[in-house]
């Protein structure tokens, strides 16, 4: 500290108490370590997937990857079966979630009175917090017998019911992300539209939606990604957990990529099977990881476009 008659401040005075400086460094190091942990987790995920997936691809008979159906314990790994089922169920889910989620988002953002919004938004949030295993039960015990079976002559386990269940699961996600995007559209744009004499629906369709389109698209991509990665609804309601023949009929039971992974784990409480069956788990996992990573990155690009413009 400066003494009287010595007004100059030395640099050493500004350096601070060495004890505090040391503590500051220690704390900072702790934070850096915890931040680095998340990178370690990513590396571990990729590492655990790639090694065994490579073992699978290099040892499996490539003909078995396109043959009849998905029966890993019998050495049949028809990728078409699980990929087509995954796409089919995701498509059904998005057919449900797109109108429901977007409609809910537009209503909440453009039409709802503040009071109605305060009531309805939390209900959507609760729906978003319902575990997927509960929606799996719901798809199996309610959607299938009450919505699917009265219309189509089919058995309880079918991909349509699972797809509807996944759609219900994805709806709140689509609604909440696209509502955020619509609310981010500046009020001036709406005012300008009304000023030109546009009706409310015209303003929504020709001004608000085009302005928020990036966020809306992002919400849909995110929804697809979530639908593809969803496990429990599909494992419970789509049936065919032991394996299945190739089918593109949504009324048949089907096995998705996620359900294929889950079914290798259940039944025996032990991930088991002849060498290849065990490794196929990693291969499918890697496929799933890459697909969802690409979709999420694309979705992020779209979101960033909204943020940059306004």
């Amino acid at each position, binding site marked *: 500290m400066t003494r009287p008659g010595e007004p100059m401040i030395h640099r050493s005075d500004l350096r601070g108490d060495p004890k505090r400086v040391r503590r500051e460094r220690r704390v900072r190091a702790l934070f850096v370590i915890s931040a680095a942990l998340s990178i370690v987790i*990513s590396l571990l995920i990729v590492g655990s997937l790639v090694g065994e997936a490579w073992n699978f691809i290099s040892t499996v008979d490539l003909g078995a990857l396109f043959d009849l159906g998905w029966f890993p314990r019998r050495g049949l790994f028809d990728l078409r079966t699980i990929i087509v089922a995954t796409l089919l169920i995701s498509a059904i889910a998005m057919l449900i979630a797109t109108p*429901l989620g977007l*409609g809910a988002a537009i209503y909440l953002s453009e039409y709802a009175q503040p009071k109605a919004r305060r009531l309805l938004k939390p209900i*959507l949030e609760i729906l978003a917090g*319902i575990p997927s295993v509960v929606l799996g039960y719901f798809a199996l015990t309610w959607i299938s017998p009450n919505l699917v079976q009265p219309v189509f002559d089919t058995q309880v386990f079918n991909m349509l019911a699972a797809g509807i269940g996944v759609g219900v699961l994805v709806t709140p996600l689509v609604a909440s992300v696209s509502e955020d995007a619509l609310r981010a559209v500046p009020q001036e744009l709406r005012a300008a539209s009304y000023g030109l004499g546009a009706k409310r629906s015209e303003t929504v369709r020709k001004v608000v939606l085009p302005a928020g389109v990036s966020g809306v698209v992002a919400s849909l991509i995110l929804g697809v990604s979530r639908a593809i*990665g969803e496990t429990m609804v599909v494992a419970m309601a789509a049936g065919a957990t032991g394996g299945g023949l190739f089918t593109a009929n949504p009324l048949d039971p089907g096995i998705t990529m996620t359900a294929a992974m889950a079914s290798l784990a259940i039944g025996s409480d032990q991930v088991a099977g002849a060498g290849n069956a065990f490794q196929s788990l990693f291969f499918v996992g890697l496929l799933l990881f890459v697909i*969802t990573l690409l979709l999420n990155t694309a979705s992020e690009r779209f979101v960033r476009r909204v943020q940059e413009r306004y």
Partner: protein
Amino acid sequence: MTLDKPVIDTAAVVHQRLTGRRVQWRELAFETALLLMLLLSVGVLVVLLADVIAASLPVFRTRAGDFITGQLSSSATTAGVGSSIIGSLALTAIVAVLAFPVGIGTAIYLEEYAGDTRLARLVRTNIRNLAGVPSIVYGILGFAIFVRFVDAVGLGGATNGRNVLTGGLTLTALVLPIIIITASEALRAVPDSIREAGYGVGATRWEVVRSHVLPAAAPGVLTGTVLTLARAFGETAPLLLVGAVTGFFTLGSSATLLDRFTDAYGALPVTVFAWSRQPGDDFRALAAAAIVVLLVVLLTANAAAIILRNRYERKW
């Protein structure tokens, strides 16, 4: 002829043109369609709850207490969710102990220390990507890495590492990105003037964070954490891969604490899954009753989080 009345009542014409006598059917149809979509989305929740509660009534009416405390069993008349609840609580506790400090630490690093450095950008991108990884992929991480790790450090027990510790580690990895993202948002909401006031009186960065930023961000951080723990409580898919048993198990009363942590374990959502797969209405009713218990826990946690937020949240 008098001109005391105007030939055209301008005010009336304008009024009529503005309000219009005809209903704008297309406007009304558009709004109604949107409202219908919203009500359908919300109505699903109502139908779901009604369906589950109706299906669970036989169980709760005849043996509520016995069901809540009972163990898993192959007989539908004696099976209960007691052991599963304990398993799920243990998992959630492990997640809380591990993910909370690491998650907050990372968020503090990203928001308070890192700025726009290369490492920070890498960590941010990485966390966003991790948050989008399907939960079952974390199951693979769990059984390829964590199971071996837990076994290698001698905590494998009778299950060779497929125990509640592994399950907890797996769920920790799963929810860590979400905790980091919500905590970051809470920290970002604290205005810079608070920090500058701290620096102005000579506080170091950590002192500012500890005594000013963290207390101000605490409600947001805690709300996010509670919601995330609720998510961990309801997670099923990754646990299937790291050995949460879908079969039937009992632990003797002589089991020590270490046994409980290293032996086979159950979890409430996994139990729901297992019972739903059983043929017959008995187990369906049990599954519904287990769902009711699960939802009661989750809705309580959600309500607590919302109350916490409303009570302590500050608008700057």
